């Protein structure tokens, strides 16, 4: 199934080919969770602070369905 992964801020370095205007489109077999998706994309889970699925707050264990859009954010500390 196809899902979209959008990496923000310093997480972008794990997907240098991510288009600027949208996320990475990934074809992954179900069952699929956020953490499995991030691992398949090469994103270390310990670098991820906030996860959103379809613009709603989610966790690593959330199961994903075809067409879901996952956004991942690192800890952002600067001020």
């Amino acid at each position, binding site marked *: 199934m196809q899902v979209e992964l959008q990496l923000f801020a*310093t997480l972008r370095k794990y997907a240098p080919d991510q288009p600027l205007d949208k996320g990475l489109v990934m074809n992954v077999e179900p069952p699929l969770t956020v953490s499995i998706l991030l691992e398949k994309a090469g994103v270390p889970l*310990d670098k991820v602070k906030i996860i959103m699925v379809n613009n709603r707050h989610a966790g690593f264990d959330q199961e994903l369905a075809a067409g879901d859009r996952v956004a991942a954010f690192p800890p952002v500390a600067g*001020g």
Partner: protein
Amino acid sequence: MTERYARQLNLPHWTPETQQHLAAARVLVVGAGGLGSAVLPYLVAAGIGLTGIVEDDRVDLTNLQRQVLYDTQDIGVPKAEAASRRLAALNPDVEIRSHRTRLEPGNAAAILAGYDLVVDCTDNSAARELLNRTCLNLEKPWIHAAVSEYFGQVTTLLPGGPCWQCLSGTGAPADPPPAGILGPVAGLIGSVQATEALKQLTGTGRLLVERLLVWDALLPGWAEFSYRRNPDCWACGRG
């Protein structure tokens, strides 16, 4: 007074009473760096009666690329002092109060108790955890923001709603090493914070409550995400 605020007084929903409400308001800005450089002048210019600044750092040459509140001649001067001088010149009709200290567990409650609203312009998660805990205890609203590289995020937290830990509780990575920050990104996100502060104080419009607004300057674009109170949150829930 009326002439200084004429462009605000011409706003829809903004009456002389609104302006008087601002004149009676007390806002604490924690951190006077990149975010604070935008937040502070806009709040003081808008006529907030008392603006507090918590900052123990001194102005450094590397600050000036984004901390536009300061001049080159301020290098080495305590930021709280330089900021107060600049802000008093911007609007001598309001009070500026410097707290030349770090926010710490031993002083946070005493400092925050004197204010109606807190604006998070800090630069580390430990300070934000302390702000979150103290604002929960004192039932203070606060406006969180953080920036890194080309990216910034902002949300408004009200008593009874989700707390910062509800949003940030997923995983617990340590703070990243200091990253580069494009100066205007801090200014942009700080401007959103100042807007939220003025809206919260005046009851104007809809706040960024239960919503995380992010700006990615590389796209460029805004995105909005929703979040809820976590009943199992260790800070505001069952733990």
